[in-house]
């Protein structure tokens, strides 16, 4: 088979122009305030419930074995993978 290079080029060009036009309208043109990218260290509206957990130690694990079958399988597969392959 021999390609029609001209037709292909025209197709590519028109696709690119179309996509560029669409992309240009995808985001509002005015940039956000520069301060918006620098949130406060602790967002003022966020708080935590009183926490009764014990201090973190080296000997007591705090994770929870997943009951979600999908995640359980993901965890098992990843553990097996790193045990045998390292990553």
């Amino acid at each position, binding site marked *: 088979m021999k390609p029609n290079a001209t037709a292909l080029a025209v197709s590519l060009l028109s696709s690119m122009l179309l996509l560029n036009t669409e992309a240009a309208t*995808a985001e509002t043109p005015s*940039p956000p305030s520069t301060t918006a990218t620098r949130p406060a260290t602790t967002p003022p509206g966020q708080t*935590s419930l009183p926490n009764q957990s014990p201090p*973190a130690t080296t000997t007591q694990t705090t*994770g929870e074995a997943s009951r979600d079958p999908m995640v359980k399988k993901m965890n098992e597969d990843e553990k097996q993978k790193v045990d045998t392959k*390292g990553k």
Partner: protein
Amino acid sequence: MNIRTNPGKFRGFEQYIRVENVSRRSVLKGLGLAGGFVLAAPVMSRTAFAAYETGADKMPHGTVVDPRVFVAIAPDGVVTIVAHRAEMGTGVRTSLPLIVAEEMEADWSRVRVQQAHGDEVKFGNQDTDGSRSTRHYLMPMRQIGASARTMLETAAAKRWGVPATEVKAVNHEVVHSASGRRIGFGDLAADAAKESVPSVEGLKLKDPKDFRYLGKGQISIVDLRDITVGAARYGADVRLPGMKYAVIARPPVTGGKVASFDGAEAMKVSGVEKVMEVRGWPWPSKFQPLGGVAVIARNTGAAIKGRDALKIVWDDGANGKYDSVAYRAELEAAARKPGLVVRKEGDVEAALKGADKVIVGEYYLPHLAHVAMETPVAVADVKGDKAEIWAPVQSAGGTREDVAKSLGIPEDNVTVNVTLLGGGFGRKSKCDYAIEAALLSKELGAPVKVQWTREDDVRNGFLHTVSVERIEAGLDKSGKVTAWRHRSVAPSIASTFDAGTLHQAPFELGMGLVDMPFEIANVQCENPEAAAHARIGWFRSVSNIPRAFAVQSMVGELAHATNRDQKTMLLELIGSPRIVKLDSVKDLWNYGEPYDSYPIDTARLRKVVELVADKGGWGRSVPKGHGLGIAAHRSFVSYIATIVEVAVDDKGKLTVPRVDTAIDCGTYVNPERIQSQIEGTAIMGLSLAKHGAITFKDGKVQQGNFDDFPVIRIDEAPAVTNVYIVPPGPDTPPSGVGEPGVPPFAPALINAIFAATGKRIRALPIGKQLEA
């Protein structure tokens, strides 16, 4: 083998020119549209045959050696080669195609590189981590190139009616010397496509003396121009029509969740369209999202403003009291008591008791954050049971698999387009951000971009572990080290997917602990328990960072204690040239490589020490306030030694006038990239050693951005970094380059500071310790 792009299927990548993204759909579509490319054939995979054994075939989906998957030749002669690994600054998407071009005798100026999408069945393993790409793919890529060359030569011989032995591919042509005939690759492409792929076992590879590209360092990376002029397209540059922009407020404590939230004020922010709780999974859940509250907007800035206006009450859960100061004390206490024995030779207890002198060093390294210049970001477009992702991911195949599982759709229905990565360092091996985008797109019925801010990156990532390394070294009267006990205490990466993890995994123990190469009669390595209270993940060089810091700092301490030169002490400890036997280590992890191909060879370790000492002027006179430090380490099956010169003024200000590093990474492809990687590790190593610390209080990360987790700026950078590459032997397999430069940097720096000031730093970062 047409795999040129049909741009209509590459939304978001319309500005890519030289490096394009390949999806399977576009490949098939492209074949139908253009049809004239050759070697096009149904996808077939074959296990690579290698002249030396590597761990490549044991990786998920192994290797694929098939020119029809990786190479396309257009009628105009343009050769397209697929890069199936991710580009994050190592130059890998140039290096691997360059190997193919070399073997097939392609003219690099007529080669185009295409980025593969995530498909490990088709391309083989795509995990771009572990400093594995070149060492696993040098030979397979050579074989792919040689196969393509053989098919072209066979096609030419048939056309001319001459034996195939009389023709030869030379610089994008096949030549018949006897008749003087020659024909270009483009003209041969259609015929070559009809040839069967030759068996790997029968391939004739080029003689390395005939290499035009490999080992020369004269080819720029294909992304160089775009990166330099700001035209490179990263994940954040992807834009789709109708796309929504999202940021997420995630639980500030690992294992936490939303107790309640109020999005009313957020909805008042101009541009905000929706506020919604997003699903998280109880920790640990591999790379699944943390969940939280998402703000959807018309642009990212509005989404961030909206998030700032959220009112959220968190339930911090079981890690709400995680405190770095208290936990460090716990780690130190654990390191002072016996732990799980993971290596034992001789009788270390008796040897320590009988020693003339015992030197003890306890070394602390805090959590670290990757802070790649590009924060995590992903775009997803989920329609029905199909999903398309655009993201800077190190593991395209893994991302595809995890997104499919999270959406409950077949893997074949997920396309993962890999963008250029603005740094990775292991963070982007975890695809939680791509899953977040996919789940939101499914929920909203529109394409969604999830953008992480720097604060998100620092506070909600997968951190490098925190560790205490305690070494006790016993010396006899002559100053010879007769006993070595090393206890390593650190939460394991395995805690990210195994709730009960208390000990480090074999792959972590194998990074500088049980593989310690010193020639000492009595050695014991122990691994006391350490439960994790934050998400721990792979970080460039992983456990080698704390281990090299401890072991090589101890070398400096022993040199001082015995009044010997650091280099002399180091070589004495390394001992005689030999292959280290580690029979007492159960499940020895050798970076996934067979020990026969990649043993611990102390001759090679000695050689890099000698080389850097020679080239780096070890022992030279330095001005007052300056000092030299040396360190050597084997990691990712490469050998590396570094000398750092420091200057410390009377106020404790630290500068680094010069760094010298020698590396033996076996056979290599592009020495220019090795140099750039080592220069990069000097920058990263110095950043981490001077400033790197992620700390927790009340379960929350206390840092958020470069103001409190700084990376060094140009005025702090080493003024000179010299790199010396050991020429490979004829049969030396390739080994890692991307990571090995980091581990020896900190101990060389610390040893240099001691030489300059007499102050021994055992806890990183250096911070203000020199100002005291």
